[in-house]
């Protein structure tokens, strides 16, 4: 690992100011992807801006019709949250299956979404649930957030502050893990709303992609065995 400068701001505005002042800076959340990449010298930012001191970015807030998860909320906190378990149990289950306990104790939802690893679990939930990614500048609908492999709609200097999930009638997540890395070889998040069923797939493309079933009577993907249903899923 190369040497780097380190800042630990206490507020989002302070973090954003540091990001604009320091050239070649990177915000760091849980560091579960960035740190291994730096150790392998695949990334060597000169400045790290640690977001873990920003209290406003942590926590889960249950509101009417939606649940909002702060960007720096760790996977373990989502997995163990009674509020999440009551409103979107599939999301708690997904968070409880990310990586291993060490990763879940460090990794955060904001870090996962900003990194947008093609095999990450969270993007499938965000897309299938039609969540809104909230940043220091704007609110980005999930459909517009995931642009491609490790690419998002975030502009330089833009930080995710929270993710707002509308509450589905029912939802579920299943993944087939890579035997070695245990990352999702393919993961599918299904969410049922009054308006229809939304399906998002992760691991099987450069980024998560949606498969929509707006007409509840035409559900070919659910009437066939899963293996053939998988093969028929197309990016929409």
């Amino acid at each position: 690992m190369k040497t780097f400068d380190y800042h630990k701001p206490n507020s989002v505005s302070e973090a954003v100011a540091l990001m604009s002042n320091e050239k070649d800076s990177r915000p760091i959340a849980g560091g579960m992807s960035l740190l291994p990449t730096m150790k392998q010298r695949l990334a060597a930012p000169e400045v790290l801006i640690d977001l873990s001191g920003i209290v406003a970015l942590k926590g889960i807030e249950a509101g009417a019709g939606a649940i909002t998860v702060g960007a720096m909320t760790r996977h373990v906190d989502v997995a163990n949250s009674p509020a999440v378990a009551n409103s979107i149990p599939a999301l708690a289950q997904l968070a409880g299956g990310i990586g291993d306990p060490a990763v879940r104790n460090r990794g955060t939802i904001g870090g996962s979404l900003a990194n947008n690893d093609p095999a990450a679990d969270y993007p499938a939930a965000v897309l299938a649930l039609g969540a809104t990614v909230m940043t220091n500048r704007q609110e980005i609908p999930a459909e517009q957030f995931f642009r491609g492999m490790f690419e998002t709609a975030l502009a330089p200097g833009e930080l995710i502050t929270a993710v707002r999930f509308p509450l589905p009638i029912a939802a579920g997540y299943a993944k087939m893990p890579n035997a070695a890395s245990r990352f999702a070889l393919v993961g599918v998040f299904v969410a049922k709303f009054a308006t229809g069923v939304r399906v998002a797939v992760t691991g099987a493309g450069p980024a998560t992609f949606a498969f929509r079933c707006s007409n509840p009577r035409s559900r070919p993907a659910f009437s066939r065995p899963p293996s053939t249903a998988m093969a028929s899923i197309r990016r929409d």
Partner: protein
Amino acid sequence: LVRTINGQGHETTYAQIVCEKLGVPFENIDVVYGDTDKVQFGMGTYGSRSLVVGGAALSKASDKIILKGRKIAAHLLESSEEDIEFAAGEFKVAGTDRKKAFADIALAAYVPHNYPLEVLEPGLEEQAYYDPINFTYPGGAHVAEVEIDPETGIVSLVNYTAVDDVGTIINPMIVEGQLHGGIVQGIGQALFENCVYDDASGQLLSGSFMDYCMPRADNLPRMMIATHSTPCTHTPMGVKGCGEVGTIGSPAAVANAVVDALAHLGVNHVDMPATANRVWRVMKSASLLQATE
């Protein structure tokens, strides 16, 4: 000892042999290894040979110590060497209660105030070489039970039972650990571990444990392991090789279980490792073949 130790528990097993032979307390035995300044030339540990070869040399060296100890004891006890019996760490004049402990003999050997210096060299240090006249033939029977998800090809090992004959057992717990580790290594070969090279560039694609799949605890059932001892006829202690027994049985047992699980589809071979992808493809092509027939 010339064997290098890397987790097989040699410190314990070798000390047990010396403890048993010389009757000295287990905690008084130091096993020195792996330092070429201190130990003789050696070839290392491999081929399940550490106990078979190194342990036999240790047993022979212990016998030489006892032989010399009897000469010293005969002098101290004013008896003839033939009358000295050695058992449980004591040299005794047969048919009497006159005896010397192993420690007394060792003291006399190194502080030879009362010692047959004219006929016997002081010191109590022996060296032994051993080359087995034959291989040892450990054997066993392994039974694997697998379940295959017909939709994904994921193979789950749900039960594993093995009975192995490693000859005389010095330490049952260490033998069980060796069998356990060997079996898991073989399961890794049968189901998970795979070196993949890129056909065009020759680049190793499975270059880290994120891609090269090692067997992990959650891949394994609780194994039933037992032993059945038939002492080897040509090694001094009747011991046989142990480290590789598990590794030899398990790939065959697991691979055969996978093929057996797919036999109804007409499958009679699956390449190792039987990854989900490979099994799924084999199932698909077998099903297609059956459909066209």
